[in-house]
């Protein structure tokens, strides 16, 4: 039954409904499926159930209907095999806890250790590898509260690496993180995708989604749409997911265009805006990953 260690895993949610003990139904009939070697964005407004869906995927809440399977196994089995790794939201972590970077990353190895959790050479190597990959090796003895926002984030990514998780869930990894760190994390995620891992990133930051996510799951208390970014990430779908919550700046109706034709400058503060071209074309900043797509599009136009 177990897929070969190098074969990518699949993740499927079928009709997942989550009801909290106080009776609040946070998620209704959520259905989607993903295959490995992907970075998928989980997009929705605050309170749309992103964290709830994560909790269901990690087995923290038991769906009142439907089921989650990972490579056709129930979540518990996947957990026991250490398949699922989780990078928590920054607010969930007690940053004053007396543990250092190395300790935290070592916690990712617990599943591989014996009952007493005494690290062996393999565990130390895995931790050292992970720390080097995220560039925190030199900071390994720092107490975790003494790191910058981006470094903090990377500690937990390193923990997921050390765990050798094959399904990696990141809850709002880019909130409160500067652009440089965001790029570093994105680069790392791309590497992980290339290794065949399944990466699910929740975000309400639309601008960066087309940049690095090849698939999108749109949710608002249920799954509204899922599939490749270019198909799902349309103005219509986003309007449905975000309702009135989306600030809409329509260039065609703006006076800017009358002034300078196509040349437009969009300035924003921390979050990247999503800029949709004519007919819902997505704007990419980093074209390298999308050269073919862009080329096709240009070819189609002319």
């Amino acid at each position: 039954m177990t897929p070969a260690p190098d074969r990518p895993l699949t993740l499927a949610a079928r009709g997942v409904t989550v009801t909290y003990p106080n009776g609040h139904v946070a998620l209704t009939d959520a259905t989607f499926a993903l295959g490995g070697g992907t970075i998928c964005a989980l997009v929705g407004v605050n309170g749309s159930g992103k964290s709830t869906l994560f909790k269901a995927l990690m087995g923290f809440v038991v769906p009142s209907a439907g089921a989650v399977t990972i490579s056709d196994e129930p979540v518990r089995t996947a957990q026991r095999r250490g398949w699922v790794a989780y990078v928590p939201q920054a607010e969930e972590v007690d940053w004053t806890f007396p543990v250092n970077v190395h300790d935290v990353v070592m916690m990712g190895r617990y599943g591989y250790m014996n009952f007493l959790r005494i690290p062996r050479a393999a565990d130390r190597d895995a931790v050292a590898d992970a720390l080097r990959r995220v560039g925190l090796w030199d900071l390994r003895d720092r107490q975790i509260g003494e790191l910058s926002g981006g470094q903090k984030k990377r500690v937990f990514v390193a923990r997921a690496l050390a765990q050798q998780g094959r399904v990696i869930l990141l809850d709002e990894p880019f909130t409160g993180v500067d652009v440089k760190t965001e790029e570093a994390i994105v680069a790392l995620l791309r590497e992980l995708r290339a290794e065949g891992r399944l990466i699910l990133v929740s975000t309400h930051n639309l601008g960066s989604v087309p940049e690095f996510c090849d698939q999108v799951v749109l949710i608002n208390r249920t799954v509204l749409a899922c599939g490749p970014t270019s198909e799902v990430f349309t103005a219509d779908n986003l309007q449905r997911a975000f309702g009135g919550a989306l600030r809409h700046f329509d260039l065609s109706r703006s006076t800017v265009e009358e002034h300078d034709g196509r040349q437009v400058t969009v300035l924003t503060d921390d979050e990247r805006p999503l800029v949709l071209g004519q007919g819902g074309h997505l704007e990419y900043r980093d074209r390298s990953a999308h050269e073919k797509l862009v080329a096709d599009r240009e070819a189609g136009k002319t």
Partner: protein
Amino acid sequence: MSLDLLLQPFSYDYMLTALWVSTLIGAVCGLLSGFITLKGWSLMGDALSHAVVPGVGLAHLAGLPLSLGAFTSGLLAAAAMSFVKLKTPVREDAVIGVVFTAFFAFGILLISLFPAQLDLKSIIFGNILAIAPGDVAQLVAISVLCVAVLALQWRDLLLFSFDPNQARTLGLPVRRLHLTLLLLLSATTVAALQAVGAILVVAMLITPGATAYLLTDRFGRMLVLGSALGAFTAFAGAYASYFLDGATGGCIVVLQTLGFLLAFVFGPKHGLLAARRARRRLCLVAPAVAP
């Protein structure tokens, strides 16, 4: 004070027993206090230590082992708290407060109904100087058990305290760890009850841990340090109480609080003075950054 007077406590059997039993309890509570403070269970410690009182009373009246009664009543209280918390929108601290005060009031009611059989003073303030041999055996058993469990499970409990979600994704038995910690807390509460009494137990269960937390950034070191602080203060407090006609609990806890204040002011890295020095250095280097 002559040397003779200083050595006098060691010439009484009851004092020797009190000294080593207090030291043992102090060490075990200090060890656990690291988890309690970091898990944010300080209020829980306070609550359980009050909630065991009716159990102690009933066990005494029924002629059962005190530990059994205390343990049962502590767990009942914990169960009641989680039940009420699940069923109501009331904040957790208020729920804990309502439940433990009710239990404690029931205990006081029992004591006031049977004043001849139940000694209010020894339950509320502890009475380690007059501890019975049977109770000593129980305390030793409890301590050994707690230390053994902590020695085997401390890394799991650490992860559980730090990041329960990660513990769950790794497939660790989170609910069992929660229960383990709760059982350890109840057990040490029962032990500490004898030494310092119901009201001051919570100090034994948090102050050494909080002090150690100010002195180190490593969890393992914090546990060892907390345990050592607990043992030392309990020993010194019991010793001092010989000269103060009792109030063992008061002496132990006053010493523990002094320790905390010292660490708070003089701690090498997280102390008040160290922070002030660091700020001043920052001011000298880059005045613009100064607050």
